[in-house]
């Protein structure tokens, strides 16, 4: 039996300890905000925050996060009004929206680590998150907006 702490809540798992956290979150815990995009940490759609760091849940096993705090989009902010979320809405960032949760989690972790990133730092930090619709210009601007106060 493995016990995980997700969004402040205890979750138990008695199956495969190597199960990727992504599938535990989505299929076992019903937290479907976190998305599957590639399964190989190439696209960032599955990004969650573990302790304070952005982590790709598709290549992180459930046993890797025992004893650590996992935050998903569902737990990012109680009313969904994290500065990054607000900036995203203000700039109408998404198109299809599928990658946006991963982008938002990555951006939130970036701003925790570096509250005032430069545009170059934003582009570098966000380069692991693919948006096939191509919302990058707005993502970059939204991260900047979130860092300067929405």
């Amino acid at each position, binding site marked *: 039996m493995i016990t995980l702490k997700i969004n402040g809540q205890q979750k138990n798992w008695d*199956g*495969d300890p*190597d*199960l*990727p956290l*992504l*599938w*535990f979150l*989505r*299929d*076992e815990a*019903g937290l*479907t*905000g*976190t*998305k*599957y*995009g*590639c*399964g*190989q940490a*190439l*696209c960032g*759609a599955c990004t969650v925050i573990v302790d304070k760091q952005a982590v790709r849940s598709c290549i992180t096993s459930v046993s890797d996060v025992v004893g650590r705090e996992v935050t*998903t*989009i*569902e737990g990012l902010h109680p009313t*969904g009004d994290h500065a990054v*979320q607000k900036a*995203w*809405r203000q700039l*109408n960032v*998404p*198109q*299809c*929206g*599928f*990658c*946006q*949760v991963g982008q*938002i989690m990555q951006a939130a972790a970036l701003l925790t680590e570096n509250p005032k990133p430069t545009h170059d730092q*934003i*582009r*570098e930090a*966000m*380069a*692991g*998150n*693919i*948006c*096939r*619709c*191509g*919302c*990058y*210009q*707005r*993502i*970059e601007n939204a991260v900047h907006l979130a860092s300067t106060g929405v």
Partner: protein
Amino acid sequence: MNIITNPRKLRGFERYVKVDNVSRRSILKGLGLAGGFVLAAPVMSRPALAAYKTGAGEMPHGTVVDPRVFVAIAPDGIVTIVAHRAEMGTGVRTSLPMIVAEEMEADWSRVRVQQAHGDEVKFGNQDTDGSRSTRHYLMPMRQIGASARTMLETAAAKRWGVPATEVKAVNHEVVHSASGRRIGFGDLAADAAKESVPSVEGLRLKDPKDFRYLGKGQISMVDLRDITVGTARYGADVRLPGMKYAVIARPPVTGGKVASFDGAAAMKVSGVEKVMEVKGWPWPSKFQPLGGVAVIARNTGAAIKGRDALKIVWDDGANGKYESVAYRAELEAAARKPGLVVRKEGDVEAALKGADKVIVGEYYLPHLAHVAMEPPVAVADVKGDKAEIWGPVQSAGGTREDVAKTLDIPQENVTVNVTLLGGGFGRKSKCDYAIEAALLSKELGAPVKVQWTREDDVRNGFLHTVSVERIEAGLDKSGKVTAWRHRSVAPSIASTFAANTVHQAPFELGMGLVDMPFEIANVQCENPEAAAHTRIGWFRSVSNIPRAFAVQSMVAELAHATKRDPKDMLLELIGSPRIVKLDSVKDLWNYGEPYDSYPIDTARLRKVVELVAEKGGWGRSVPKGHGLGIAAHRSFVSYIATIVEVAVDDKGKLTVPRVDTAIDCGTFVNPERIQSQIEGTAIMGLSLAKHGAITFKDGKVQQGNFDDFPVIRMDEAPAVTNVYIVPPGPDTPPSGVGEPGVPPFAPALINAIFAATGKRIRALPIGKQLEA
């Protein structure tokens, strides 16, 4: 109009209310008889009339103009408007209901959007592709809204005992200004529902100067908040009680099948419940599944791990020798010989022989995969002779038909629930994944989710075709182009529907080949034969991508050969402002639109070139190693021109400091979403130009994920993309937005690279071609 307290009950309400289907043809006829309806630029005040026809009536099931199908008002005043097209990022789930709300004077903050299930008899055509939604539905949605408004006004007038002409709907109320009385939509709903639906011919549409929403770009997507908090529901987010999770190992070669398999090791994986062969159809079979071996598990992770442990022997079949290097040589050889003539003006052979100079360009574009961020996925629950599907499908109606046919049950027994699409790009026009889920659910007697992995998506999809475009242009002594021969060779999408297809279909020939707009005396377009060896499908912008790449590269090559400015050369080739006549083209497709409403108008093409040149600073001086390129193209009956600025450093590293694009998409609904689409097409265009290649060896796709099929990331993205939308003429009908941005990007980029480096790239992707 329908009165309900719970919008969820909207589905199925046709059982209680008779729904008249106003056929598309009768609407068009009505338009003609009535002398037309108001269509004015959203930003202009213009009461004048202007009729326009679209090809909507030629689509399966046409359009339905009936407020009782699309609008419901609850007693509390909440207005529910049905979105019957699929949302994949264009904003259509917001834009079309917004048109209805505009015309019916509903207050957007009190509007809820309800996604339609798949039912084209009820809702009209739902196949969301071809950049058609706004151009086919602007007018029907206005008519639906105007009908609903008229019913509300009539009901209020009756209640007050005043003539209907004295009352007016204003922002969710009907007002009688003479007496100062007013009554809310919610209070009127029950009475309004008893009113008969007014005839389309007699409808009074709003004067565009009174528009609150249309053309303004002030309304955010209805799903915006849900997307940012993770509650937006995509296909994979559907969870049903007792649902099983499945992944499928599919034949790696198109047309292949399972020879034998051993599932023992897979069954030992924790969480795996079952391993079973699933039915496949011989190729080609439209959108039917490929078959293979399914692993059923308690979660997706276990199913994937189980699939990795399968031992399968495949029978590859006839396509086992498909190999991309050899195939390219085949296409090139075909392009160097005469082929089926699909357009002919003058005598191109004689004109080329008599030319002072002949410039030849041969351009290659490989297969591409869609790689929408959400790979294909669907949930099915089949019980007896009934099936319910949940999934991200572009064509809900088509999915319903195909699932019914596959399960051999009546269409009425199939319910298709459309989730949000995590990107579509044409891939999700094909519902094979939904059929797979239905077949597995039927076998297992339980709800099943079939999840495609990224590798499945890349290796087992319906790829963009692979093409060689060869253009020979003859110039006279003065540098004027007098001859143009374009041979286009590529396996056709029709090969996915019919065996032994070797020529492209009219809808492919009509995307940038036979509709070439240049003013040249001798023109010949040819389509030599090409056989398919994999599943070919629609990919955003389709054949326009290779055609615009070839034609617009050739323009710059001609400019270079004649020492002209590329923009001047482009404008000279486009020629005088005129409607292009294409009398020699049989079956001119024109994106399914009537040519009189949507002709090739070179004045509009010139206009976007001139606008982007002005706004984008064509001719401005740029730093060393930088260059500007320009390209223009008409597709999906819209006109678009792009300027790309590139920088290439001494190691060949390519960056894009700036992109400028001008689009003329006629009368528009939501400029904010148009801007976002064009920003996105710059990224997709850069992705395919810089990195995009799916290649085959031994019949198998050699790529599998974003490591070997890369797409543009933020650190490679253009620093700035500027978008300019041409204000529509008063009578200009709406045209496509979702796709037209892609085609001109690659040639503008390639032309900019030439300007920066002197290197002319004729085969995409760029890959390492710029490295010293």
